[in-house]
């Protein structure tokens, strides 16, 4: 018997590597999955098929997560097909390849990163909370970053601001909806080994890699699966008295 048996979970960014790992981990604990992403995500069907093979329901839903009406419709579809969602994981698309130096960031760069990481999370939460309030239970997990807990040399102010915003959003929702049995937390992910990050990692010299790893007490990067396990904890009743918190999954690099 899984710890999330038959609960309905929405994961955004479900077509990305981290989103997929989170979807797998939640499904492995018994949850049925609504897989959200922006239109054009090619991986959604693949991860949906994988989850169905695990014996869980999976509903891939692509759309404009920055459009309130579209998000509301998607959430309605989840409630109709799977049941009312009580778990929401906001896993945004990250830097989207935007520059890391403030002077190079265009207004478009700023907008797309804030919109897709922060605004989309707010809209998904707003839409999901209607169902969580009715259920009298819910857990929201925002995927933030070590960049928002400390600093980052590899991503720009638009990314750090968005990730910091996700922590603030979790705190506000924790406060506003705590009395209704709904919890909201953030997970700050540290350096993570993904296919997406691999090309940039390979451009570093051995010396640079070593210097970077030396800053991490555990001396290695995280795997997406390790973040997913912390999400399962925050989604489950094991974290019954944790809300408004940020868990650093950073190998000790940044902690508060």
């Amino acid at each position, binding site marked *: 018997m899984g710890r999330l048996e038959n609960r309905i979970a929405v994961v955004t960014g479900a077509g990305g590597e981290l989103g997929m790992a989170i979807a797998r981990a939640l499904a492995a604990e018994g949850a049925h999955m609504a897989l959200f992403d922006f239109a054009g995500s090619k991986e959604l069907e693949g991860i949906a098929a994988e989850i169905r093979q695990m014996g869980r329901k999976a509903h891939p839903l692509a759309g404009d997560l920055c459009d309130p009406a579209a998000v509301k419709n998607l959430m309605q579809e989840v409630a109709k097909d799977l049941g009312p969602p009580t778990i929401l994981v906001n896993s945004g698309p990250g830097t989207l390849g935007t520059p890391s130096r403030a002077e190079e960031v265009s207004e478009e760069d700023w907008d797309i990163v804030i919109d897709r990481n922060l605004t989309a999370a707010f809209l998904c939460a707003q839409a999901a909370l209607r169902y969580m309030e009715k259920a009298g239970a819910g857990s929201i997990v925002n995927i933030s970053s070590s960049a928002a807990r400390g600093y980052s040399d590899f991503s720009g102010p638009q990314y750090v601001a968005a990730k910091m915003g996700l922590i603030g959003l979790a*705190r506000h929702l*924790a*406060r506003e909806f*705590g*009395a209704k*049995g709904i*919890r909201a937390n953030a997970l700050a992910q*540290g350096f993570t080994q993904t296919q997406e990050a691999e090309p940039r990692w390979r451009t570093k010299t051995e010396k640079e890699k070593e210097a970077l790893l030396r800053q*991490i*007490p*555990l*001396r290695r990067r*995280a*795997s997406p699966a*390790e*973040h997913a*396990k*912390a999400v*399962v*904890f925050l989604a489950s*009743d*094991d*974290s*019954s*008295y*944790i*809300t*408004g*918190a*940020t*868990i*650093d*999954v*950073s*190998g*000790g690099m940044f*902690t*508060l």
Partner: protein
Amino acid sequence: MRLKEKTAIVTGASKGIGWAIAFGLAREGAHVAAVGRDPARVKGIVKEIRASGGKAIAIQADITQASEVRRMVDETLAAFQGIHILVNCAGGSLATSRLTADVRKEEWDAVVALNLKAPFLCAQAVFPYMKAQKMGRIINISSIAGRSSADLTGPQYTSAKAALQGLTRQLAREWGPWGITVNAVAPGITWDPLSKRQWESRSQEDRDTMLGAIALRRLAEAEDHAGAVVFLASEEADYITGCTLDTSGGRVMM
């Protein structure tokens, strides 16, 4: 079971949060060395773990003494294989003065010894075994008092519990390369006989104010914290170290 065959030492296991932690770890398959000052009470948790099919031994020790800590480790190793998990839960304000002007040096020393020095001695004593097996989990039970401040306890308690978080980060940094993670849990006000008495002596207005400051609008049960400790002790928290996890119902958000 998430902690099958792992050996866990839990200090302060004879009541409240420590009791719930010892039971929670045992339920996940860990073999528990339950440590406490009062031999009768520490036998109580061992009895309960055994009755539910788990493995546990009782160790009576004053862990503010290095020699007693040594004996605690020896007795654990005599009963079980290796030491994988240490939960430093023994602590408390020892009913010492609450107002700074009243705090005697003896009170300061006693509270700092129990809440800060004892966790340090215990961590130091288990380190060689964790290092040798390239795996270890140390979880320090701090307090909301150490994360913020408190009305019901004095500066000695707040300082010691805050320092325990510093110790957590320092050990995490030093021992990370050996696959040892060190984290803290900072519980909010939790139901026990003492907090119940204090709660009952408060006015309704006071209670409403206190609950209003907690996002979940309730005080904690000991089990609320045990879930977080089990998580940090398990392989699910492999990449988490140096953290202080607030189990405060949203009273503290960091």
